[in-house]
């Protein structure tokens, strides 16, 4: 009798545990949220993509043409063909390459202003993928960050607010919270945590990160440097502190960005780190793109009301918030 009762209690407990997981999953991904933050991310990402597309276009032949820095039939040496498709592979002339690069640029502009947003987002994503898959020799972290943002923007209702679409055709429609806005923001948040986790974990291999000298390696690299910080040679302890602080921040980001208590601190450090990289190493686009991705952790309504430590910033709500 006792054994039967214990068994039943155990089964109920497991059911409750499983139900908690399902409920948590549902709340995390499928609680509707305001599309305002997603609209702001659309404008900022679209602006960065517009700039990136313009720069690709400045040397379209060099990046995508028949005499490119990397020939089309050598691209397999740096990525996984045939899966890394690109519309530039089928472009036979300089004119068609310029045309395709211009289409990418126009899609980025339309995404920024929010005109025909769903279509613009898909074409902008296709243009981005085509560029980075055709020219892997010329890509870097900025492109990774843009990719992180573009697919969620294509999935979510990025044009529901602050867009020409709304101004021209949907002005009278009320703005309602959307589940798809939550899914898009969550994809950015989780992807960003993956980026920081692997970037931080990769640094744990490096002796210079443990020794606290890695930052010097970036400061002394004249090819990167846009700000002379060589005075740090006279302040080794400061270099140590900045290096170890960066390492700890990056590695702990995926855990500490979720609890309300630490989120503001983690995001404030993100601003310092990414603006620092942007200003000192001449990679402002990379810094800004990472900061735009970090903005996915702001409240979806962008309302600061109730964003204090007690009430918690709830970018869309999560069961993790509940336990913090």
């Amino acid at each position, binding site marked *: 009798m006792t054994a039967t009762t214990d068994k039943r209690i155990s089964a109920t407990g497991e059911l409750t545990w499983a139900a908690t997981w399902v409920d948590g999953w549902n709340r995390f991904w499928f609680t509707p949220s305001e599309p305002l933050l997603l609209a702001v991310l659309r404008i900022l990402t679209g602006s960065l993509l517009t700039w990136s597309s313009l720069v690709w276009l400045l040397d379209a032949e060099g990046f995508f043409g028949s005499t490119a820095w990397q020939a089309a039939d050598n691209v397999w040496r740096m990525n996984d063909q045939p899966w890394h498709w690109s519309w530039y592979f089928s472009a036979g002339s300089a004119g068609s390459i310029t045309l395709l690069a211009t289409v990418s640029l126009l899609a980025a502009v339309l995404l920024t202003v929010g005109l025909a947003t769903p279509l613009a987002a898909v074409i902008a994503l296709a243009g981005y993928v085509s560029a980075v898959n055709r020219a892997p*020799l010329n890509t870097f972290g900025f492109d990774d960050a843009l990719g992180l943002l573009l697919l969620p923007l294509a999935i979510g209702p990025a044009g529901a607010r602050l867009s020409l679409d709304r101004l021209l055709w949907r002005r009278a429609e009320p703005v309602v919270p959307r589940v798809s806005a939550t899914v898009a923001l969550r994809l950015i948040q989780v992807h960003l945590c993956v980026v920081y986790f692997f970037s931080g974990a990769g640094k744990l291999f490096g002796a210079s990160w443990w020794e606290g000298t890695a930052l010097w390696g970036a400061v002394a690299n004249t090819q990167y440097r846009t700000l002379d910080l060589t005075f740090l040679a006279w302040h080794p302890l400061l270099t140590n502190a900045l290096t170890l602080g960066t390492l700890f921040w990056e590695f702990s980001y995926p855990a500490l960005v979720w609890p309300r208590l630490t989120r503001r601190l983690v995001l404030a450090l993100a601003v310092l780190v990414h603006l620092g990289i942007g200003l000192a190493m001449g990679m402002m686009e990379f810094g800004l793109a990472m900061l735009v991705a970090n903005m996915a952790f702001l409240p979806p309504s962008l309302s600061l009301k109730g964003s204090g430590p007690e009430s918690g910033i709830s970018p869309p709500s999560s069961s993790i918030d509940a336990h913090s």
Partner: protein
Amino acid sequence: MPQPLQSDSTAQTARGNWPLPARLLASVLILLYLAVVILPPLAGPPPASELAGVMLQPFRPLVGSLALSHGYRFFAPNPGPGHSIRWTMTTADGSRKTGLTPDAKADWPRLLYHRRFMIPEKLAAFVPLPEAPAEIRQEAVRDWQPLVEDIATRLLARHGGREVSLDLIEHYLPDTFEVREGRGGDDLVMPLGRYRWREEASR
């Protein structure tokens, strides 16, 4: 207690907008996306487990289609020295030109500089240092030479050249005490060969 963004009634209504089959389908797609986001950096660059490589296999089409094959190892494991490509060219009219890729003065805006800066940075991963055993350096030529041929082709096309020779320069990265003492070191120079248009070479 969990804190939904909207009131319970709003959340329930919206959840009703996504019925169970829709949430199930969305959940499968989300898990699929998470797999293609997490597996590539787990499977490379080295060191990486064989298991991660095997798990990545079925997702390769999706990873490639969405350009998600990133390692996310920014400045890892250690920030290293910078690289440039130094080139000397004979043009069609017989004059000589020299240059650097990237060129901090000519490659503007900065994003264009950075896109060209990545060329020697990524090439350097294929070119062994001069102190590497001759056998390894010889074997590596098969990997880097096709890339260098493309770079040479680009330079010849861009500058109207007939023949170009290239060197990969690894810029000396001074230590803090060297900077304090006003000392430095020499850049490493790794010759990458001389290249000309095929029709000229076959004449």
